[in-house]
């Protein structure tokens, strides 16, 4: 210990490493522990034996929460300093899946620990959970060479797509698997770099320090939001705010709160591109491709377990319009119009390396409407390109547009009546071309 303990009790964070041949894996997050401690958390990293699988790791997490509970009760260094009502679980790789599993065990077995957040860095998903039980954050590198996507269900989008809300995702261009753990980074030349990081990739992964800054920034912000009630920190996930030391990195986030009104989740079976989830009509005008299906069916590069719509446009103005039934038109109680979107990798309609853009129009029942560029609120980047082409991912990210943007006074523009929103449309410029996939068109907070 190199600093006196401050008075009071502090939220607890337990970190579980993933699997490698190193017995010292648990030491690889000291950078994160120090950072969390400096922000008022009691942070511990725990050991699991080499080869340990998910259940073992999850049980170890909970056992160590129990250890800390005992230390909080007993006389000694931690006596009275551990706030067991506010606990966050962080895990990496198999440990990331175990973080989710631990929160579910805590609830299912009535253990009563105050786990308020699960954070999974580059997680596996062997068990296909349908809920995380608590708010979930997933951090994933686009250049991950382990949970890389070599099988269709071997990406870190699985655990996110299957989880209940609220859920957040941070997709980091250039991030790998091992570099989130400083111990593993020391041996990556014989591990990850011999698997799915090719010679042509070598110049592209971001540095070890960058990985540390990503983990420190986003993990801390998420824990502050979920365990300390600091809602303003959700802006790092919802609004594209970046931790200062990551400002030069390409990071793309998804943020999906609970309680949204889903206009279209594209999950109706059989898929029907002509109707949305609310039962409203969907039409396409001058769109050479308009199809709804499982995204993996529409796009071999999609890493997602979800349905979506694929839209292409070419030279002439195109419009995708989703109608809102009368009974669902009052969205004045929500703050945001949101959707997830990605460029389709490999489409000749998308310019290599260039972002994509289009207008989003809200129209009310009286015909008043306003269209805003999606890029004002979030970029729609070209997919991250890596050496093994089948591991390139058409990865969805959130575009979240404040509904106030459609009502704020603006000379010459209509003010849309948010109590009577009749349609949402995506409008594509003449003279441009593109091919995108969209999921979860919704009103929310």
């Amino acid at each position, binding site marked *: 210990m190199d600093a006196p303990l401050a008075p009071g009790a502090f939220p607890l964070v337990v970190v579980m490493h993933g699997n490698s*041949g190193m017995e010292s894996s648990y030491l690889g997050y000291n950078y994160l522990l120090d950072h969390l401690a400096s922000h008022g958390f009691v942070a511990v990293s725990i050991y699991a034996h*080499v*080869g340990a*699988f998910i259940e073992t790791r999850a049980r170890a997490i909970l056992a160590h929460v129990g250890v800390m509970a005992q230390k909080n009760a007993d006389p000694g260094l931690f006596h009275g300093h551990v706030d067991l009502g506010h606990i966050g679980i962080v895990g990496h790789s198999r440990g990331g899946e175990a973080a989710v599993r631990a929160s579910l065990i805590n609830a299912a077995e009535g253990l009563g620990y105050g786990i308020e957040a699960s954070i999974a860095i580059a997680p596996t998903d062997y068990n296909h959970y349908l809920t995380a039980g608590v708010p979930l954050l997933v951090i994933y590198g686009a250049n991950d060479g*382990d949970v*890389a996507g*070599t099988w269709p269900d071997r990406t870190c989008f699985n655990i996110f797509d299957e989880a209940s809300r609220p859920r957040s995702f941070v997709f980091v261009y250039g991030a790998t698997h091992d570099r989130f753990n400083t111990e593993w980074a020391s041996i990556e030349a014989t*591990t990850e770099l011999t698997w799915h990081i090719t010679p042509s990739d070598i110049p592209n992964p971001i540095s070890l320090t960058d990985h540390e800054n990503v983990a420190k920034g986003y993990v801390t912000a998420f824990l502050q939001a979920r365990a300390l009630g600091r809602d303003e920190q959700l802006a790092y996930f919802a609004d594209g705010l970046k931790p200062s030391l990551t400002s030069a990195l390409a990071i793309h986030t998804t943020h999906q709160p609970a309680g949204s009104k889903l206009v279209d989740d594209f999950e109706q079976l059989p898929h029907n591109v002509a109707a949305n989830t609310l039962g409203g009509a969907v039409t396409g005008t001058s769109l050479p491709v308009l199809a709804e299906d499982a995204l993996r069916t529409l796009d071999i590069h999609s890493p997602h377990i979800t349905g979506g719509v694929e839209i292409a446009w070419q030279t002439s103005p195109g419009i995708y319009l989703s109608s809102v039934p009368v009974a669902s038109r009052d969205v004045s109680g929500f703050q945001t119009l949101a959707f997830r979107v990605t460029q389709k990798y490999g489409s000749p309609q998308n310019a290599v390396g260039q972002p994509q853009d289009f207008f989003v129009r809200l129209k009310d029942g009286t015909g008043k409407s306003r269209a805003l560029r999606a890029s004002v609120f979030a970029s729609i980047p070209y997919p991250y390109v890596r050496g093994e082409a089948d591991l390139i991912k058409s990865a969805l990210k959130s575009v979240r547009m404040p509904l106030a943007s459609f009502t704020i006074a603006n000379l010459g523009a209509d003010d849309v009546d948010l109590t009577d929103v009749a349609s949402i449309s995506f409008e594509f410029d003449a003279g441009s071309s593109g091919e995108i996939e969209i999921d979860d068109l919704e009103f929310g907070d």
Partner: protein
Amino acid sequence: MARHVLELSGVEAEFVLYPGEAEDVVEAVRVTVHGPTFPQRALVPELIVGRAEAERVSIAPDGRTIRGYFRMQPAEGASVTVRYGNSLEGTLRKAFRRRSVRPLPKGC
């Protein structure tokens, strides 16, 4: 087919006592495959003999052997494969031979 080749150098097998479906003990075959190195990664390795996939696959602490258990004796002449998804895969040149499976020690 996996995109990287896993080098394997040999295999040995023996009958062992193994937990049954109920709370009983049954005879099973433990297959141990040798190689220069079996990496410990997020992906769980698979040990496959013929069409049968081993249970309880584990890598030795030194990373030089991997072993798993078969409730049914694998087929005569079956190929022995270790793979990590479609990332890494190796198959022994020598096939599995039932006569080379060491019996249970007398008294078991």
